[in-house]
């Protein structure tokens, strides 16, 4: 990917491969050593599943781009014990939501939000659940990217996931 980006006129300020990227503690510690390279970059391209992209977005105050689509958890879970962060939709939309997944974390799985049940940053389903669309709004505001919310997300093609809709065999 480094060579491909450079051939397309992009500078690569640095790169790192983290052992288990969806482990936020490990990722935070590992990225400390790349503080200067990350600061020099306009954004971060993360090549892994949705949980890993969200981990980076949580520990780094920088625009994060998803480079992959997650097709299935393969019977496993990411190293994010308290909640599921990726529902393997097969067409990752983290690019447009500040690196926070509304499919996994919105009670209604809304692609365009928030709904009318978002009150004081909490979800109407349970007052202990934060409204993820409020979190997305806050994150995009912090990054100066609120314009991304002006894009209407049309219904997704769920068949590209290996776990949603009809079974589709895409892997050889």
């Amino acid at each position, binding site marked *: 990917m480094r060579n491909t980006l450079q051939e397309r006129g992009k500078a690569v300020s640095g790169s790192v491969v983290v052992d288990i*990227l969806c482990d936020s503690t490990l990722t935070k510690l590992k990225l400390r050593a790349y503080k200067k390279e990350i600061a020099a970059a306009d954004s971060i391209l993360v090549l892994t599943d949705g949980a890993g992209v969200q981990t980076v977005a949580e520990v780094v105050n920088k*625009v994060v781009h998803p480079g992959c689509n997650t097709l299935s958890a393969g019977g496993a879970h990411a190293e994010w014990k308290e909640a599921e962060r990726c529902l393997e939709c097969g067409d990752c939309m983290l690019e447009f939501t500040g690196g926070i997944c509304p499919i996994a974390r919105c009670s209604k799985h809304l692609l365009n939000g928030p709904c009318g049940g978002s009150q004081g940053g909490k979800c109407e389903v349970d007052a202990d659940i934060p409204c993820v669309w409020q979190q997305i709004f806050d994150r995009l505001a912090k990054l100066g990217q609120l314009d991304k919310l002006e894009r209407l997300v049309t219904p997704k093609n769920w068949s590209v996931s290996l776990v949603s809709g009809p079974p589709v065999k895409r892997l050889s």
Partner: protein
Amino acid sequence: MLISEQKPLEEILSYLDGDKSIFLIGCKGCAEGWGSGGEK
């Protein structure tokens, strides 16, 4: 193990439009296992 595949290059490049310098992050876990984002 989470199964992932790289997005089409043109889609990735559209995300990076306007960005001159990029920092790359991969994972030695699931993504390396599936060839979507490891050392290679």
